[in-house]
């Protein structure tokens, strides 16, 4: 039994491989047509690739039929084009006709058909590469250039127009990486410019029919470009030399003008111009000392300096009968009494406290001057102060710490708005109208009154006479001591002023009222001193009796003139009046006119005019009163 099993297994083991070998033979795999190409539109070739051969020798055959016939033909030529190919010659090639081509693989076990492919010869044209590609270097006035020329492939019949070819070429330096491509159209020659001298160029050409595929690139042709110095390089050398020359000249000029260039590019930082400001102290780091040095001990003048001060008398009118005078009437009364003066200096902006606005209310009275504007307020201020004086108070009038020696500073002195509009009631008494840059009131407020430091009176006078810029500068120089920022230069504080004015007026309304009839009784108040808080300490003359200062004015029953206004030249425009006891007829108009006429020439002279002319003008006035007295003017300190 065992021997039988072994024999069976042996036989089986021998037979099985043979049987299995027979089973591995299969029909061939499916072939596939890869491409068909025609080089000249007259013949064409098709190639295929074989599938698996199934272990048996397999034969391939190609069958086709044209689009409008069912007749199937076999490939006429399997060998001309190589293995796995079929070549169609001229006689068998029809253009504008679709071929339906199929490849069949056959072996002993069966056959397999490929997928059919439709082709039209016209659309599968791929010519051969162009021939005879030559590259040469030619000279031109601009430099050398390459000329590439070629010929069409031999098989393509371009002469008869059967095929129309377009060409393309590419060139590059031998060591370069990228090609430079050019379309050449139907021409067989091409020029290439802008060469690198001393390099080796290589060129290639290919072609394509107007409907078909691009041919392969032809073999590269090499050419050596000789060395040459292009004119461009010489031009660049010239430019470089020229620019270097210009650069040298510029450097020389700049070094010559080192300082001015430095000044232009890096403007010097202005140092502090604070009088009394010691930079060394600041550097030492002791700010207290620095600021202390700025504080002028002598300002405001104490009572010990009182004798040095010239005190001006303020005319204050109090109309006890008119307690509740309407505000408008006040203004009118006040404003209409004024004479003309120059136009206010608010540059036509018509600020609220422009005195011309006030003047307009007067109607017929022509008024343009700020001085006239200033006066009503002043008078009102006077009235206010009168009130306080009547009460027997020693009014403290705030004055700006601007130690304006001039009368010009009068407005500043009285403008509490500088301080920020606090203590309005106090301020109301003596506030002057808004400070016009050129306004001056020739009130005889001496410089000393407001001298806050020893250096100030000497410093400021020239500044006053000078331009407004210095004027304002002076202001600013005072600010550190007072801690108040001034911005005076041609600035207005209309709001504060108007507020003040209104308040003032209101207050006056509440109070005894204000009126300026000529027949009012007057009281005089004299400025006693300026205290530390920049306040004018006033005292009524009546309470203090005669002051030495009054001696100069002292005449019993003397009449005082009202100040009409202030002109540009620090001239007080005073108003002549008849006897106070007389009826309120002012000779003011005539005098004003005269004064005005006289005044104009002096105004043109600038700010250096003294007060002398004013006095003379007044003296020359034809309207003389018996006891017309103009104070302040001759006694005004001139600066």
């Amino acid at each position: 039994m065992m021997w039988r099993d072994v024999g069976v297994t042996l036989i089986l083991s021998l037979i099985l491989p043979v049987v299995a070998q027979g089973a591995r033979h299969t029909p061939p795999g499916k072939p596939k047509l890869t491409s068909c190409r025609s080089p000249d539109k007259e013949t064409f070739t098709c190639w295929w690739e074989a599938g698996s051969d199934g272990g048996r020798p397999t034969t391939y055959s190609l069958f086709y039929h044209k689009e409008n016939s069912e007749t199937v033909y076999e490939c006429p030529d399997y060998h001309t084009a190589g293995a796995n190919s079929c070549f169609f010659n001229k006689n068998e090639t029809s253009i504008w006709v679709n071929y339906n081509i199929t490849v069949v693989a056959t072996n002993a076990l069966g056959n397999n058909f490929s997928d059919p492919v439709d082709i039209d010869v016209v659309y599968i044209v791929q010519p051969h590469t162009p021939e005879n590609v030559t590259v040469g270097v030619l000279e031109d006035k601009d430099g050398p250039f390459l000329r590439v020329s070629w010929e069409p492939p031999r098989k393509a019949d371009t002469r008869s127009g059967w095929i129309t070819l377009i060409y393309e070429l590419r060139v590059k330096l031998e060591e370069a990486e990228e090609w430079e491509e050019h379309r050449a159209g139907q021409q067989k020659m091409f020029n290439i410019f802008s060469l690198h001298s001393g390099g080796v160029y290589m060129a290639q050409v290919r072609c394509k029919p107007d409907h078909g595929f691009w041919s392969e690139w032809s073999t590269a042709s090499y050419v050596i470009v000789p060395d040459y110095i292009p004119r461009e390089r010489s031009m660049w050398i010239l430019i470089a030399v020229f620019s270097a020359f210009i650069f040298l000249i510029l450097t020389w000029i700049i070094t010559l003008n080192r300082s001015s260039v430095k000044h232009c590019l890096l403007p010097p930082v202005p140092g502090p111009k604070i009088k009394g400001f010691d930079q060394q102290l600041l550097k030492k780091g002791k700010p207290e000392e620095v600021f202390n040095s700025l504080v002028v001990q002598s300002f405001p003048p104490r009572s010990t300096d009182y004798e040095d001060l010239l005190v001006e008398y303020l005319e204050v009118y109090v109309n006890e009968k008119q307690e509740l005078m309407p505000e408008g009437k006040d203004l009118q009364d006040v404003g209409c009494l004024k004479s003309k003066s120059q136009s206010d200096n608010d540059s036509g902006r018509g600020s609220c406290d422009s005195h011309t606005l006030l003047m307009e209310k007067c109607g017929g009275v022509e008024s343009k001057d700020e001085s006239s504007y200033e006066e009503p307020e002043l008078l009102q201020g006077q009235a206010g102060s009168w009130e306080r004086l009547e009460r027997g108070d020693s009014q403290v009038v705030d004055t700006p710490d601007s130690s304006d020696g001039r009368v010009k500073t009068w407005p500043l002195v009285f403008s509490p708005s500088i301080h920020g509009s606090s203590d309005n009631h106090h301020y109301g008494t003596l506030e002057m109208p808004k400070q016009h840059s050129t306004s001056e009131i020739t009130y005889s407020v001496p410089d000393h009154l407001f001298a806050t430091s020893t250096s100030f009176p000497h410093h400021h006078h020239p500044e006053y006479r000078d331009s407004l810029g210095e004027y304002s500068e002076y202001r600013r120089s005072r600010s550190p001591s007072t801690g108040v920022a001034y911005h005076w230069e041609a600035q207005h504080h209309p709001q504060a002023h108007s507020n003040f004015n209104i308040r003032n007026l209101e207050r006056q309304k509440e109070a005894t009222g204000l009126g300026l009839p000529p027949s009012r009784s007057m009281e005089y108040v004299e400025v006693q001193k300026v205290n530390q808080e920049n306040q004018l300490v006033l005292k009524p003359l009546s309470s203090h009796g005669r002051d030495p200062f009054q001696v100069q004015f002292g005449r019993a029953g003397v009449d005082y003139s009202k100040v009409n206004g202030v002109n540009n030249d620090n001239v007080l425009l005073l108003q002549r009046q008849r006897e106070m006891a007389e009826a309120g007829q002012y000779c003011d108009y005539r005098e004003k006119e005269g004064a005005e006429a006289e005044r104009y020439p002096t105004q043109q002279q600038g700010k250096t005019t003294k007060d002398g002319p004013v006095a003379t003008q007044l003296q020359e006035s034809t309207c003389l009163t018996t006891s017309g007295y103009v104070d302040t003017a001759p006694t005004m300190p001139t600066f």
Partner: protein
Amino acid sequence: MNNSKALHGCVLLLLWPFQGTTGSMAECQDPGSTHCTISLEKLLDRAIQHAELIYLVSEKSLTLFEEMFIPFQVRIPLTQTGNTCTTSTLSISTSRSEVQENSDKWLLHSILFLIKFWIDPLVKLQTSLDRYDNAPMALINKTKWISDKLMNLAQGVTILIQKMLGEGAVMLEQNNKSLADYPVHFDMLESVLRDYSLLACFKKDTHKMETFLKLLKCRQKGGLGCSLL
């Protein structure tokens, strides 16, 4: 694209006698006229340029149509769909040798026949394109342009026939068969396929015209390369 534009420009720049403007040259529209000064070579050149341009534009139109309406999986050869070009049924020689064997007369008449055959189907194609929702304007403009240029080419070939063959005005009767072969399909797919085959066949036929004209020119120039040897 650049080539077509260049060709187009060249054609427009030339004095085109078929359009009635000859500039300094006398027109050759009068059949019996002997004062025509345009040479036959120039006439053939212009005809060839026209045909080349028409071929390029029709190729572009077919590409546009394919991109727009024929998805990739449908792009099977036309013969398999059963739509064959009508003109292929006509006995037009198909190999170069056959073509070159034909006489000038045959060539010219074939060209004229082809032109006249395609005038009506192109008009129908335009109406069909208008019915599509999203036919690109470029395609519509191109088909319009082709129709116009085809008319010009017809005039030119007529003149060439007169000049080369000495015949009078040849009036080929309308081939009514052409109309019947392109029935109007209202079904979208059918319509699309029909238009696609129409464009493809037209492209092929314009190439034929171009080739024939070039052959004629080669023969006119003389030279051995034109004839079969």
